């Protein structure tokens, strides 16, 4: 009898862990994610809490700006129309807000890798004077005064009291569900679709000239590279060197993913290019040489104008409409 009871207890205990959820998956042939889910196991309720926080201006000092203000779902979670991020009281930041997708595979965050863990990422825009200009301490106080969040936290954590840890973990949970792996490119890889002749040629050129940094299937090698942009004298941004203080990191920025690039304009860390052909022209004819220039760019890249059109045709196959218009990623309407 006693054994039976223990057996029951254990089976309930383990079934709890085995419960499959569809909140997160590793797409076919992708590497293992780096995010440690053991410390923050996903649940529907926590993701929903995180989604509410993501869309809530309560995270900013004057309750005016939410994460989604600069990371809109229809723009692959970046900021459309602004080359530099645009924060509280119309203040302008110094960098282009990055896209948010497939973040479970990222080891570091921000253009210079200043942030070492997805959980801690939200603290940066929350605290930045030109972004949300708020403190996590105050946010937790505000959340703990809200009856809406009392029930959301209770549903998620079995405890209605918010803490910094839980708040950040919930935001992580929502961000972890933002997986983009259903573009035409992915369907081609799964033999469910075919490239046009133009896309196919573009893909070949891409593999030859771009793929060493923009590695498949994430379309980034997740490293920091100097891509030959001249320093903007107004911004004077030298990238990763500020974090590591290692001169070999001067002018290096994190390689961004090219997934959903059609919707993530403007491009580059300072958003200096609005169009994809400007980006390609940069790589073929405007590379600014310096000691830390990326290996792949040391030899000039030659592309004819037709070839550029083909590369762009390929890049557009990275658009994932299912991701961009997924209602589960959008503003949480009252249930």
């Amino acid at each position: 009898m006693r054994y039976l009871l223990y057996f029951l207890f254990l089976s309930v205990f383990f079934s709890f862990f085995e419960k499959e959820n569809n909140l997160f998956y590793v797409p076919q042939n992708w590497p293992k994610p780096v995010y440690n889910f053991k410390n923050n196991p996903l649940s529907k309720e926590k993701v929903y809490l995180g989604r509410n926080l993501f869309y809530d201006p309560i995270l900013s000092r004057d309750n005016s700006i939410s994460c989604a203000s600069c990371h809109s779902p229809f723009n692959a979670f970046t900021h459309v129309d602004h080359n530099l991020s645009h924060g509280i009281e119309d203040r302008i930041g110094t960098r282009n807000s990055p896209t948010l997708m497939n973040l479970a595979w990222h080891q570091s965050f921000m253009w210079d890798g200043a942030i070492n863990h997805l959980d801690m990422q939200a603290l940066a825009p929350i605290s930045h004077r030109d972004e949300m200009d708020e403190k996590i301490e105050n946010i937790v106080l505000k959340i703990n005064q809200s009856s809406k969040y009392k029930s959301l936290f209770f549903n998620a954590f079995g405890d209605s009291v918010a803490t910094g840890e839980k708040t950040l973990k919930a935001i992580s949970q929502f961000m972890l569900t933002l997986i983009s792996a259903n573009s035409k490119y992915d369907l081609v890889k799964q033999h469910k679709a075919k490239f046009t002749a133009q896309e196919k040629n573009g893909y070949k050129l891409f593999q030859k000239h771009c793929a060493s940094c923009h590695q498949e299937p994430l379309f980034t090698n997740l490293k920091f590279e100097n891509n030959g942009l001249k320093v903007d004298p107004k911004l004077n941004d030298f990238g990763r060197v500020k974090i590591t203080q290692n001169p070999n990191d001067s002018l290096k920025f994190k390689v961004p993913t090219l997934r959903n690039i059609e919707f993530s304009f403007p491009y580059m860390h300072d958003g200096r290019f609005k169009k994809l052909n400007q980006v390609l022209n940069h790589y073929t004819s405007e590379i600014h040489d310096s000691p830390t220039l990326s290996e792949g760019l040391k030899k000039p890249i030659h592309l004819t104008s037709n070839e550029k059109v083909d590369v762009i045709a390929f890049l557009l196959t990275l658009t994932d409409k299912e991701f961009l218009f997924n209602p589960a990623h959008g503003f949480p309407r009252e249930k």
Partner: protein
Amino acid sequence: MKLLIVVFFFLIAQTKLMSQEMETMEINFEPTFHSKQLNLNQYYVISKNDSIQFTTFKFYISNIELINENKIVWKVNPGFYLIDIEDTNSFKVKSFIPRNLEFDKIAFDLGIDSLTNVSGAIGGALDPTKGMYWTWQSGYINLKLEGNCKSSSAEENEFVFHLGGYQSPFAAIQKISFQTNKQATFQMEVELSNWISEIDFQHTKSIMSPRKEAIEMAIKATKMFVVK
């Protein structure tokens, strides 16, 4: 499955056994200045024509180890403690150790180790709402001291030391150890003047990021800790 049941019983038996043989160990941190209780916002004379006042003083203690004949015999786990001058409850660090444990040395870290620094959001003493986490660049602040001093060159004579950094070559965590007899309660004086007397306020008024100066300053700060 059977194995699991056995393990389960074993664990229950183990915890029961252990709980019987444990005793409390207490480390009492006593922040002082010139051997008197340290108070925020009070002026302390540090030289003929200089006095100093503190507005913030807090630091992390972690990884408490008991050592016997150069071997670690006990680790306090999980052991992250934030000592904050504004919260006298935080001065007492309590933990359980085996009753018959022999040790001749106690060691702890001033700060947070690198693995914890890259482990994402953590609660309790490590919750980012404690104001000991950098937001613009990931990492815990091991030690915060803010105040003002007449000789500080900064505006309104303010000084700010946020010492931290976990990545080589700027890891600022410091190990502190003391020879000791086994006892249940340790009085650990945190004599701030021992650190202050090492600072040249005319040249150093603020350190707020991981760098060489932060490590040098953290080494100076270890001089505060004195076992009574």
